[in-house]
């Protein structure tokens, strides 16, 4: 699936590329980096998983070349970047449907509304909403165990924004991890669990998890509760939890030819690879657009601090 239309091998490139950030995007970038090894064996690509927030901090301080992000850069991060003389370009690489999951043995949750999710996750719920029947009376009188993204993750920001209504605002008494694998582990082994994370992680572990259809009580984008899937994410009916995934490349980094080569390779293969790891590809023309945008940035648009 890889490297079909990229440059003539480019294998004489060397150097290193540091990437960090979102765990949601990580599987895509990991896949790209792995395929890129065949392309340019001498280029050392390292990928960390600090969550979008953690990655952004490093990125805006100029410590890394590329940041994986499951949300857009926020104002304060932009400001830090500016202070450090770093300009950047944002490139979309795939779609994700943030998935709400429960344990497969959970036979009471058939669907859930956004309002109910808000009731569970808003800061006021901390220490008070502790049992299933507090959400819907017909649900059992048992403890609810919550698993969700950690505060450094873009998923967390996106989820709180979309559900609670305010970014970075939620209860704190749940199992929070930047590493979605931990959340999968937790939900898949805990019958009283409810959690959320990127679609790819659900897709990979379907057999151990049960996705919950989400009802946004807005019939204009599809009536009733909707399960995330290729279809529903692409056509936007899985709202409000569908979202784009990004990488950001810094102006400093594009000075390195290996970075330029890598990003081009990334955009060439993002469609196939994101699908392979369980995300939803962008329409082809969008990838083209991204490439152009990057080309511009790389060849002199370094001043254009544009998204």
């Amino acid at each position: 699936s890889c490297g079909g239309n990229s440059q003539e091998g480019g294998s004489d490139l060397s150097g290193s590329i540091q990437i960090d950030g979102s765990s949601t995007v990580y599987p895509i970038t990991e896949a790209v980096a792995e395929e890129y090894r065949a392309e340019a064996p001498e280029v050392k690509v390292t990928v960390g998983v600090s969550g979008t927030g953690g990655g952004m901090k490093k990125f805006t301080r100029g410590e890394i070349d590329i940041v994986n992000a499951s949300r857009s850069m926020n104002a304060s991060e932009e400001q830090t970047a500016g202070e450090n003389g770093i300009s950047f370009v944002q490139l979309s690489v795939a779609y994700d449907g943030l998935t709400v999951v429960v344990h497969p043995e959970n036979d009471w949750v058939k669907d859930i509304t956004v309002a109910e999710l808000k009731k569970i996750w808003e800061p006021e719920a901390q220490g008070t909403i502790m049992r299933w029947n507090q959400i819907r009376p017909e649900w059992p009188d048992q403890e609810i165990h919550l698993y969700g993204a950690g505060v450094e993750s873009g998923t967390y920001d996106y989820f709180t924004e979309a559900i609670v209504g305010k970014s970075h605002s939620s209860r704190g008494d749940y199992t929070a991890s930047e590493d979605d694998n931990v959340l999968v582990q937790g939900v898949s082994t805990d019958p009283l669990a409810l959690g959320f994370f990127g679609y790819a992680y659900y897709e990979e572990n379907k057999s151990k998890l049960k996705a919950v259809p989400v009802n946004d009580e807005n019939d204009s984008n599809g009536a009733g509760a909707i399960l995330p899937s290729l279809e529903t994410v692409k056509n936007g009916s899985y709202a409000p939890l569908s979202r784009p995934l990004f990488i950001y490349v810094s102006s400093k980094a594009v000075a390195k030819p290996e970075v330029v080569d890598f990003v081009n390779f990334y955009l060439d293969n993002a469609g196939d690879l994101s699908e392979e790891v369980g995300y939803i590809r962008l329409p082809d023309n969008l990838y083209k657009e991204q490439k152009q945008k990057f080309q511009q940035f790389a060849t002199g648009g370094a001043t254009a601090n544009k998204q």
Partner: protein
Amino acid sequence: MRVQEKIIESLLWLSAAITILITISIVWVLLSESVLFFSEVSLVRFLTEKEWTPLFADKKFGILPLVAGTFLTTVIAIAVALPIGLTIAIYLNEYAHARFKTYIKPLLEVLATIPTVVYGFFALTVVTPFLQSFIPGLAGFNALSAGIVMGIMIIPMISSLSEDAISAVPRSLREAAYGMGSTRLQTAFGVMVPAASSGILVSVILAISRAVGETMIVAIAAGQQPRLTLNPFVPIETITTYIVQVSLGDVPHGSLEYRTIFAAGMTLFVFTFILNNLSFWIKKKYQEKYD
């Protein structure tokens, strides 16, 4: 030549003095970041609030849930390791053949040499599923299985140190007991264990200290949810896990969130420091007793 002697001695002294430097660095690192932390969060809040959500919108800075998690796993571990370890120590001392002892002791110590990630894997993939087969409500992450596995890991610590302590009791006391017609059991519990009690205590304290500071087992198997509970069946979070969790997320340098790991680290350090000194102090006193 005498100058050379002096130079060598100074170099050696310097190497030894580095250990003091290390301690100072540890304390300095923990203190300097914690001081900044406590300039924003009062010590009273830190010690009395019942929730630990420093990373969230509604920030609560009560260390108690983490302490409770640490306490819970430690208690479970000691509950496993103490009876088994002590029985082994007594058995090896009073009952087993010397030859058996020379083989079994190093074998037992293998338990202590296995890396703790490996124990974490064991707890998560073997012990938890096994326990779930007869404890229905048991969550995938829980204090129980982490504690049990940790207990297995520290068995040799208790058995070896206690065994040393019991062996250090002068032979003459054991002979006195036998000479009076005591059985081995009576000798062990009536004479040897009381006489070695301080050494046994030292082993237990060190084991506690070890359990308190243990990281990977709990990080893998006990969960990551700070919860003020003594229920061993649900996910909890220990002080050490919290530090790992935050480190994995790479909270940026200089933020309050970053400092929380140093405040947590300080708490951990204080606990283990007290325990270690206590054991050291008891050991000193006890060594004098038999010299």
